[in-house]
């Protein structure tokens, strides 16, 4: 009985170790994008502003 418990614990430990290794090798998930109109002025690039403004008729 004791051996079975130890074996089970070893399997769980191995599984978690494997998972932790696998997880650390994964690229981070892509972060969500903040819509342009919910940003501060400083959080926008000039290119983003220019494209947005052109689309709405605020610049050539």
């Amino acid at each position, binding site marked *: 009985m004791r051996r079975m418990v130890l074996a089970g614990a070893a399997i769980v430990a191995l599984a978690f170790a494997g998972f932790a290794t696998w997880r650390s090798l994964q690229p981070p998930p892509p972060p969500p994008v903040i819509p342009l109109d919910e*940003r*501060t002025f400083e959080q926008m690039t000039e290119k*983003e502003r220019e494209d947005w403004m052109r689309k709405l008729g*605020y610049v050539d």
Partner: protein
Amino acid sequence: MASFPFSLLVLACLTGLLGLRFGLEFGLPALGVAALDAPSEISATMAVPPKPGGLAPAGAAGNGEGDAALTPSVCEAMSPKLQDTCWQALARQTAAADPEEALRVCVRLTTPELEVECQSDVGEAVAPTNRGLAEDICKGIPMVKWRGQCHFGIGLALAETDPEYAIARCQDAEAFRTFCRHDVVGEMAMVNLPAAVAICAREEGDTLTRKTCWHGAGKYLARRDMTEAASACAQATPSWQAQCFHGVGWGGAERDVDQALASCAAFGDYADNCRHGVANQLKRGDPTRQLAICESLQNTEARTKCLAFVTQ
């Protein structure tokens, strides 16, 4: 053999745990720090604050100048689907006379975003009579978007009466800062062209900010009269005159595309900048004609930009 079922149990538990973990990973949206440099979906429209004076003051019902006067009981009697619209209209209608009550009305809206949009409307409506309170209302709005819209609204509300104060409000309009300068200058130009020219001539801000200033004057004036707008563009900083004439083309095309193109022909060196404005304005309504106008342009820079925008 007695241990076999136990091993199966351990394996089943492990499988279940791992299944749950991966299921959650794929089933739930990823959490993380918001990205600012990722590609963004650019909205085709922008919630430009309504022009002040669009709603009738309380008690103006039946005079044919605006909406009927609303009261809380009128809103409460409406179907749930219409109540939010009613509370927003009531808040705007109440704002100038009783801002505190208007803000209490905003609390009755059903979502946090509608509530802050309502506060932004109240801030704008209060501005002509109490600037300090209007600014305080805007500053208290927690969402960047509606805080910016609120300051934008104050700028528009005072564009005709206090140009310097109005343009200063744009500084706090966040994502809408350049849009605000464009529209405030445009509104100002309609009643006080020298003030608008003086503000644009200061050449404040980055290139885009300076360009859009002249564009706004040209566009707004062209909505009234393209010849008048062209005269105003002649006062623009030489390097931004093309920008102003682009605005003239856009503004003229909002009224009548054929007439706008005919007017553009009289603008000499800037005729193609004007036509470029007409073409850009057609992007959503008539892309085929937009392309034809772009292809007809002789000015290389205008033609290149115009064609690039067709496929953007």
